[in-house]
């Protein structure tokens, strides 16, 4: 049995190479931590806002990089601070000026991305820039792996404790404000959760891909599940399956790992669109489905 394990094509890369095992562990952490947050991001109709926020992490991480090089704590703290600042600023500007929230986020996203790229090119080479934009899931060291696992555990714990609060803040914030004093906690708590997971995703998948593992599994799962519990579960499973498949594709076809994972997740979304019982095609195949109780 032990002799045959390494020869199975699906397991061989992970048995053989430590960096593949680390990559898988990192993806596991992201799937458990970031994907459920992505489900809430989607349900709040904030998918694009999440994308903009992921770029907001960049200049903070870049300043950390400028000060301390490719240092995990410096880039993490910089990313967290920048992400939180933009979350608060963008919300405040749309509330107190005529600028709408989507425009406000777009301006910050453009500023952040260009500032981040500029700061990194002040010091580094193109390789560094690629690392920041597309991550380095195949080069996760112990410290980064621990950080990903820590953030994922924290995120899962907070989400489990505040599930009802986050859900009501998503679907009926006016009602929540009426019945509970915890409404601001739910709002800002979620923003912090989002930024923490974006920073985790940034280390593994880079700023351009970090939102991929949040939104794509969530969107795919939405086409299969009609209630929150199954939705969260299916999204995590899709994220796990997608990152495993992406890593294998990247290994066997010699593709860059981050984009391979995100593209695989994208393919699973398209597949769900075609096959999912809540997808646009389901009604054609099963006329009358809508009339069942």
């Amino acid at each position, binding site marked *: 049995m032990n002799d045959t394990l390494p020869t199975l094509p699906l397991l061989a890369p992970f048995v053989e190479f430590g960096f593949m095992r680390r990559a898988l562990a990192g993806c596991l952490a992201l799937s458990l931590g970031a994907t459920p947050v992505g489900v809430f991001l989607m*349900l709040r*109709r904030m998918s694009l806002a999440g994308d903009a926020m992921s770029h907001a992490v960049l200049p903070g991480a870049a300043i950390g990089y400028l000060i301390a090089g490719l240092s995990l704590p410096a880039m993490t703290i910089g990313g967290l601070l920048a992400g939180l600042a933009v979350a608060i600023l963008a919300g405040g500007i749309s509330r107190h000026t005529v600028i709408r929230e989507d425009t406000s986020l777009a301006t910050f996203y453009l500023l952040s991305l260009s500032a981040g790229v500029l700061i990194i090119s002040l010091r580094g080479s193109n390789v560094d820039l690629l690392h920041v934009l597309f991550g380095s899931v195949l080069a996760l060291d112990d410290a980064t792996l621990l950080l990903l696992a820590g953030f994922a555990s924290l995120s899962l714990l907070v989400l489990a*404790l*505040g599930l*009802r*609060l986050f*859900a*009501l803040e*998503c*679907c*009926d*914030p*006016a*009602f929540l404000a*009426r*019945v*509970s004093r*915890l409404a601001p906690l739910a709002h800002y708590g979620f923003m912090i959760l989002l930024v923490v997971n974006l920073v985790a995703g940034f280390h593994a998948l880079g700023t351009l891909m970090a939102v991929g593992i949040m939104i794509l599994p969530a969107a795919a799962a*939405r086409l299969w*599940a*009609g*209630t*929150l519990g199954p*939705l969260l579960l299916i999204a995590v499973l899709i994220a796990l399956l997608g990152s495993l498949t992406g890593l294998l594709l990247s290994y066997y076809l010699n593709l860059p790992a981050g984009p391979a994972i995100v593209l695989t997740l994208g393919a699973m979304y398209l597949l769900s669109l075609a096959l999912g019982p809540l997808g646009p095609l389901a009604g054609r195949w099963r006329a009358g489905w*809508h009339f069942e*109780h």
Partner: protein
Amino acid sequence: MPATVSPNPPVLRFDNLTLGYNRHPAVHHLRGEVATGSLLAIVGPNGAGKSTLLKAIAGELRPLQGRIEWPRGLRRQQIAYLTQQATLDLGFPMTVRDFIALGLWREIGAFAGVDRDQQRRVDAAIDAVGLRGLRERPIGAVSGGQLQRARFARVLLQDAPLVLLDEPYGAIDAETVRDLAALVRHWHAEGRTVIAVLHDLEHVRQEYPQTLLLARERVAHGDTATVLSEANLRRAAELASGRGERRPAPVCQATPEDA
């Protein structure tokens, strides 16, 4: 205010209440009180400030001037407020049952579980609005009338001493109106105070003993039959239509008390 000891203090009192948005007043110098346990309709022409007043009672609009007093010390969380439009995101993956169960929030909060007795009360509320067959259906997949029934069931579970209803019967069929009106009568019989903004004067005459006729100021307040007189209704219509032409900017003065 001097502390007057009354055997049955009013649930709320308007003290020179002026309300509006962006410093443009919509309700002027309102005085009066709402007796505890009363069933009060607020009627008036469009733009009379009815919904604005309800919003202020719910604690979601700060008065420009004056205030609302709460002699019984009612807190904001003890008010059930049914807004005109459902504030719910209908795309959210949630069943009718889950939506209705949110009415338990004051008891269970963000963290506590739902015990057997509370489960039973959720089921009873679902039955009370006639949604048993639809309880597992996604909330986005029910009709307007069914959604309104579900919202009433949520109010039912909130078990609030003060219930505010903002045009609860807009765009729903007669049968639904009949069922929901019966629920309102039941709340009144239980001793809750119900304040409803309504348009259908016939319905108000049949169901509501008390009425406040509003046209940016109080036209009349008291027994429905007296308040909804021809003269009062004409005056309300005049106030509403004349204001735009003759008085482009509302003049704020201390108005004498009128009946």
